């Protein structure tokens, strides 16, 4: 078994259970015209995150590397990373309202515009940057006193 399959019978059973169950779920949608579109978003989400967004963020992070701490120098790296990642996360999650992508539907549904969100996101980002800069200033001053 192990030589032929590559793992234990328990492994085969568990994996087959998931695949067969998924086949049943897909079969329920066989006649649904949305099936293809759902499949595209399903696979697309994995591809876009794993092969595009993830690597891009890692690449951007690598460009920041010269900002890291060195002996006798407090690094700026994490003080850029943290507000940048938080701000990016908020933009990712709330982009429909921040970029006013769903303005018309929202107006019909809730009777409100999406005007305030871009400004709010920018203000939150500014607060994060200031907080991070404040912490950096404290660390910088302490390191100077210690030296």
């Amino acid at each position, binding site marked *: 078994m192990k030589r*032929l*399959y*590559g*793992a234990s019978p328990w*492994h*085969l059973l*568990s*994996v087959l*259970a*998931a*695949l067969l*169950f*998924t086949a*049943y*779920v*897909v079969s*329920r*949608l066989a006649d*649904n015209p*949305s099936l293809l*579109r*759902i499949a595209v*978003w*399903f*696979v697309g*989400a*994995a591809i876009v*995150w*794993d092969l595009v967004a*993830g*690597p891009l963020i890692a690449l951007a992070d690598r460009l920041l*590397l010269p900002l890291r*701490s060195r002996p006798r120098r407090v*690094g700026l*790296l*994490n003080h850029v*990373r*943290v507000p940048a*990642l*938080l701000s990016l*996360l*908020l933009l990712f*999650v*709330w982009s*429909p*309202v*921040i970029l006013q*992508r*769903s303005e018309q*539907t929202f107006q*019909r*549904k*809730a*009777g*409100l515009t*999406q005007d*305030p*969100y871009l400004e709010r*996101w920018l203000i*939150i980002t500014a607060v994060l940057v200031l907080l991070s800069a404040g912490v950096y200033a404290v660390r910088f001053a302490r390191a100077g006193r210690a030296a």
Partner: protein
Amino acid sequence: MLLPTDPRSWRSPLRGPWLTSVFAVVLLVGLPLMIVTGLLSYAAYDPSLGGSNDQTPEAGLLASYIWFDWFTSPSWLYRLNQGTHVLLGLALIPLVLAKLWSVAPKLFEWPPVASVAQALERLSILLLVGSILFLLLTGVMNIQYDYAFGFSFYTGHFYAAWVFIAAFATHVALKLPTMIRALRSRSFTGELRISTADTVAEPMDPDHLVSPDPAEATVSRRGALALVGGSSLTLLALSIGQSVDPLRPTALLSPRGRSYGDGPNDFQVNTTFAEIGVDPTQTGSSWRLRLEGPDGQSRVLRREDLLTMAMVTEQLPIACVEGWSTSQLWTGVQLRELAALVGGRDAESVFVESMQRGGAFSTMSLTGKQIRADKTLLALKVNGVDLSLDHGFPARMIIPAAPGVRNTKWVERLTFGRPA
């Protein structure tokens, strides 16, 4: 420049079974809670009633876990369930992304397939990753009225959830021992005391998560955990106000963190009167409520007639599937009193029709349990004044513990179904 298929291209000294397992154990608590609240939310529509109640008529066995009619008390039940589902879902986003980051080298493993077992497992991982990203994405878009995905949110989210449940169960079955072993490999509190300067890679592991050529650490594991946890708390703190009335203004980026003013009708609106395309004069003195009983009896009532009936006032929440909610003071006639007028005291269901034509939820059914619940009202007033047009004037349903969309607005006909 090394290709990502070369293990030496993965330089982070933080990657390793221990860190992955810390993210995993949090998800192992959080994701089952997402599954339970999600399945309960689906049951809260009472899909067995058919029509608009059942947004996934092809569900087959996938809906067979619902052997009960949805609850009518406590009245905050759906508010709690759905607030938890959406807020927790938002808070889990950083953990899911961190977990994916921590196992990224596995995606590029070379050769990609070494055995049948590995091929099948990788396929199940694609289902796991695809489904969770799909669920987070459609959920996040739906709560912001962004329907760019172009299929019914209910269809996509429901079926993907079942794929996720299967793939998640398999992943836990296969990886639980690995997770437990990794968590035991070092002390959590001990790890929290290690500074960046002292942070080194975990010992090489059989799953190849640990970098064979680790760079110098730029952040400690403590720092990485603080960043992920802090991100979750940031998302939570900026969203909780959509479900808790006094905190509403703190939900800065949520579509449901906005104030409508401070009048009695100034609370969250979903579907404005303008959207349904009905002439406002039809809500005036010509409006009638038509009641149809199970045995052919019928009554036609004017709004003045309803106002002469016994009025009941209840503090009840409107809690949307989108997770936001708001509690208001509603005044109206108990639905069971209206049922009694047409011999429908024992009706097993009622079909509620709005003046709205078309629209996915312009008609909705309620169960016998909901008809007879003390707090199920045909509301005429809110916070002491007549309903506004946006909140359903001349009359709307308010059902305790039910999803907001079942509280049909602009009601014009109630058809009570035959007793069982």
